[in-house]
């Protein structure tokens, strides 16, 4: 396997982008990544998108995006793993470069979620859960994570304040992110008094509906060096699935897919979790961030909530989580999220995170954890300074 680098990144602003279509979004992010990387060609393209078919009636993304990027006959494919589609695209691009099959591959992610009604979006998102044994009975996404939250609170005494602290911290970071959907701070009280969606999760515990795209260019370390632009190394990639339905899992308080993916990624990188300086974690709901930090070993089981309250995951904490603002403040255009996480890790490792959210202690190793549905799949990547 060859050594792989990320040599350029790009993303659109995340938000309700009425003027931009699915293809507009993707092309904007892709062109930005190509420009920032200094490459003059790409050999192949992998696009992560959960369900452009249900959101805007468009499939065959490989073809349409290659067409609109103006690259004739480009091999391009679309991969899907619900909300982990972006991370999966990154992994497949990594494999293609590492294996020697291609030299320069773009990993992109996009989702256009606002052309459809709220009901339509809810229906589309619910396809990530078990249609027959969860969705049929009236389960929603917030509902599934609420089931995890209740189990977690029951087992470990995790509190409502701990959940709110995740949202507050992520907005603190997101307020400094020029691409964030909600670039402003919020308070604990605002979270705790926002409208209840599925007990105990309130609207401010939930990531929003968002349009957006992100793209990164992967190539060999050798080529990256020659290009002369800032690059980082991809040293670990891990991918795991778990039972799709919550009730099929042994432990409702942990995300086994994240644990397995992290184990594989860390092993590949020759590292332990203690070697990681910061991470982008999939906070589709506040409880998700807490559960994942425990599942990948950043905190002991049951101690994730306490850590947030104490400020250990803040920018100046012992283990900063979601310096980008996370899905909560930055936004969650489903297929783009996994790639946007890589964009943030790249910025932090190359010292280019904007507006004061750059970690001050010279981070060397970052982790990106992306997951699909209620934890039915997870992708974890380890990235390091050049």
């Amino acid at each position, binding site marked *: 396997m060859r050594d792989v680098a990320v040599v350029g990144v790009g993303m659109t602003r995340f938000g309700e982008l009425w003027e931009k279509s699915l293809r507009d979004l993707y092309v904007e992010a892709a062109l930005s990544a190509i420009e920032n990387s200094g490459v003059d060609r790409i050999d192949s393209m992998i696009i992560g998108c959960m369900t452009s078919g249900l959101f805007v009636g468009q499939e065959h993304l490989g073809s349409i995006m290659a067409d609109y990027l103006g690259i004739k006959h480009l091999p391009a494919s679309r991969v899907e793993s619900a909300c982990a589609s972006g991370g999966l695209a990154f992994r497949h691009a990594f494999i293609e470069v590492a294996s020697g099959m291609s030299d320069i591959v773009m990993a992109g992610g996009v989702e256009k979620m606002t052309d459809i009604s709220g*009901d339509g979006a*809810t*229906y589309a998102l*619910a396809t990530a859960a078990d249609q*027959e*044994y*969860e*969705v*049929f*009975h*009236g*389960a*929603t996404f*917030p*509902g599934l994570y*609420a*089931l*995890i*939250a*209740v*189990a977690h609170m*029951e087992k470990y005494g995790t509190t409502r304040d701990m959940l709110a602290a995740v949202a507050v911290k992520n907005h603190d970071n997101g307020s400094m992110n020029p691409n964030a959907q909600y670039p402003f701070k919020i308070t604990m009280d605002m979270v705790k008094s926002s*409208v*209840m*969606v*599925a*007990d*105990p*999760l309130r609207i401010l515990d939930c990531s929003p509906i968002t349009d957006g795209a992100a793209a990164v260019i992967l190539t060999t370390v050798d080529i990256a060096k020659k290009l002369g632009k800032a690059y980082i190394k991809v040293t670990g990639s891990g991918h795991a699935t778990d*039972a799709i*339905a*919550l*009730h*099929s899992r042994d432990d*409702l308080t942990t995300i086994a897919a994240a644990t397995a993916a992290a184990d594989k990624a860390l092993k590949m990188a020759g590292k332990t979790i203690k070697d990681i300086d910061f991470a982008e974690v999939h906070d589709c709901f506040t409880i998700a961030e807490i559960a994942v930090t425990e599942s990948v070993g950043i905190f002991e089981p049951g101690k994730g909530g306490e850590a947030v309250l104490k400020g250990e995951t803040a920018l100046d904490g012992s283990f900063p989580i979601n310096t980008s603002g996370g899905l909560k403040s930055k936004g969650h255009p489903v297929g783009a999220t996994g790639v946007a996480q890589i964009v943030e890790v790249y910025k932090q490792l190359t010292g280019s995170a904007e507006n004061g959210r750059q970690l001050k202690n010279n981070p060397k190793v970052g982790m990106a954890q992306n997951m699909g549905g209620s934890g039915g799949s997870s992708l974890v990547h380890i990235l390091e300074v050049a």
Partner: protein
Amino acid sequence: MFSARDWREYPRRYRLEAGKCKKCGKVLFPARLVCPECGAREFETEILLETGKVLTYTVIRVAPSQFTDQAPYAIAIAELTNGVKLMAQLVDCDVDDIKVGMEVRIEFRRVQTDDHHGILSYGYKFVPKWY
């Protein structure tokens, strides 16, 4: 709801038919083609028991369109008396009275109604076990 899909699900929705692995004895609901425990491929039908305990629950307040009239409604994951876990709505009780560990039984109910002219989807729901 779609006719063929509903009809195919009757054994599970109407009769709680699960599959018991002939090799390791694990009971799977729904029944599958491959046992996730031991990889074996032979199963016999086992009917789930109708009582169990709540493992976790939530109250859905922002509901998908087919369920808006029912909101707020509770959904729960319960472990039935033979160790099988499944998810269903938990009805006939005040949502404030639900507790982890509460005993429930299964009742046959309408789960979804397709507006005015579609087919009716029946299945199982949990109710508190009060007798």
